[in-house]
């Protein structure tokens, strides 16, 4: 789907944030990017989106080199949701906000509205269509930002810390939405430092460490190695810790723990 080859980028000459990084986002997967603050997680997503130009390296979409194409062009294929939704919301109504992207891609007003309404329905914000985005809660704003990205009907969605600033309820809703989109075929690049989300939802994960990829693989692979996880500045997901404490085989999600517990208490009975 998307392939990054040999990418290097630095905000200044001396220090490169990203050095010779290569990875690919496969069709239909949720690829999570984790790592300490300041290791370049957001930088990578911006390079993929074309908001930053790499000093070196290439970006491919379905085998096509798009390194030189601007973000506006890429936005037909990739939807980008910023960490802070306030930084991307500007229109007067929720509907106008969601219509912006399809309009930019040359759709007529009517078509754009149709697409916007469909996207708003997807994120359960249709009832707020005529409202000012500034009156939405943080969680709703985040969903609006997602709807704006979805309205252009992209194939890939980049979510940068989508759950930051949200409460636990909003978080659950948002993750459910992300899961649904993924099941409908959307490939997702997810930046997060919430290990619980990562363990439960990521198909694969990348951990950045000083501009390089410190780990690439399945979450279970990394989290079965506590030392390595901590060396990368991460921590074990709660489910992994709790399952170890309870003497269960390694579990990545609370649901797995419950299932195994029921089985165990079942056999005891």
């Amino acid at each position, binding site marked *: 789907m998307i392939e990054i080859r040999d990418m290097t980028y630095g905000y200044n000459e001396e220090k490169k944030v990203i050095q010779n990084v290569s990875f690919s986002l496969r069709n239909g997967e949720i690829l999570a990017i984790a*790592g*300490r*603050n*300041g290791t370049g997680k957001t930088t990578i997503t911006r390079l993929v989106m074309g908001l930053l130009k790499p000093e070196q390296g290439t970006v491919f979409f379905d085998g096509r080199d798009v390194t030189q194409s601007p973000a506006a062009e890429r936005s037909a294929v990739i939807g980008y949701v910023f*960490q802070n939704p306030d930084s991307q919301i500007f229109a007067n109504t929720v509907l106008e906000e969601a219509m912006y992207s399809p309009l930019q891609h040359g759709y007529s007003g009517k078509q754009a509205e149709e697409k916007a309404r469909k996207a708003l329905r997807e994120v359960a914000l249709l009832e707020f269509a005529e409202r000012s985005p500034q009156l939405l*809660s*943080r*969680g709703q704003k985040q969903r609006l930002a997602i709807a704006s990205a979805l309205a252009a009907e992209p194939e890939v969605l980049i979510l940068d*810390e989508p759950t*930051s*600033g*949200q*409460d*636990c*309820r*909003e*978080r*659950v809703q948002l993750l459910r939405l992300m899961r649904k989109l993924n099941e409908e075929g959307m490939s997702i690049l997810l930046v997060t*430092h919430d*290990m*619980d989300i990562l363990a439960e939802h990521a198909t694969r994960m990348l951990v950045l460490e000083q501009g390089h990829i410190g780990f690439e693989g399945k979450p279970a692979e990394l989290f079965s190695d506590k030392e390595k996880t901590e060396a990368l*500045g*991460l*921590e074990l997901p*709660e*489910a992994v*810790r*709790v399952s170890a*404490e*309870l003497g269960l085989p390694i579990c990545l999600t*609370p649901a797995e*723990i419950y299932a195994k*517990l029921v089985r165990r*208490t079942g056999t005891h009975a």
Partner: protein
Amino acid sequence: MQNIRFQEKKGEDLRWITITILFLAIGVILRMVSPNIGGISLNWNIVMYTLAIMLCRPSAKQGFGIGIVSGLVATMSSKAAIPYVNLVSDPLAALLCAMLAGRYVCRIRLFRINLEPVLLVFVTTFISGGSFVLLTKIILSLPMNVFLFAMLPVVLLVACLGAVAGQLLYHPADRIFNATASNQNQKKFSMKNVNAVIPKGSFTVVTGANGEGKTSLLLTIAGARMDYFEDMKDSRLVVNGIDILESSREILKSKAGMVMADYEGQLVTENVGDEIDFSLENAGYTVEKIQKRRQEVLEMTGLAGFGNRKIVSLSGGQKQRLAIAVMLALHTDILLLDEPVAAIDPEGAREIYTLLEDIREKYGTTIITAEHDLKYVLPYATQMLVLEDGGLKIAGTMQEGMEYMYEHDIYAEAIPLQTKIYLELGELS
């Protein structure tokens, strides 16, 4: 902390004035056109300002003001022997009326009819008329018989007529003027009746879904009185014997320091050392003291050697620690933090909470944080407050708090998995 409550302003500061003036004007006109039978006519002025008071429920002070205006109008239009008595009788009656209306004491229902208008207009007219004739009698030294058997019965009769008119007019008027402000009669509070004691040197976490008032509560404790909230006159908040809501900001700034959710927004200078100096300079410390404090807090927060670093080059966790260092330098008794680890990696999050615990141990600082994610704060916090539906659901130890959240399903999403599973296992066994 006692009975903390917030009420959102509804932007109706001038509404009571508008409605009162309109009603007083209508009153004057009606009074001019009403028939006068045997010297008795309906006192429309009083009926109208009583209705206006019932529609707007102004404060006692405002009610008194309404009375003065009405008194002036009556003085100028009255044909009574001593019209100036109106300047005493009307303010007195309107004041009483506003007090009664504000407390809803006359809201009595009979066969599902609200009798407040009839009672309130009667009482107000009687007080106004009664005091009017009483003063007239005293000033003109009229015989007692005239007062008891001629003047008072007229007042009673006028009061009865007014009461009937008031009862008939109130409900249509309420429909017209209060249709959009139907919540006018029941004060709606964003937060109410929050009562808690936060011991000195304790570590407290405030939790609850977004919009339940965590930040407002923290800001209030910090002494920031927010303009978008209306009166907090029933609230009381005492920190170390100082009444926060009554004290000046000068005193408060040495009591509590707050690190906002958007901590970057409170860092204002270019480099780390300057940031700490800035707040100390503002607090009026000497150069020697500033240098000493700066060194001390940078070491404490793990930023020693960062003194000359540009703030923009710091990571999120480092910036957060810098914001904490600034508050620490001021030696405040209380440190308030609004979601201190929201955008910080797991390692950084642990460092921040370890730092807060160190600060608490070393300086005896009272620490209060607002959090969604109880995971990081769990090892350190000794007590918690849970906010939901605009009120405090429980204040207690972490264990008590989480058990309560679990049992009553109050923001149970926030309970860390480990605790949740043990709570569930507890139920199983």
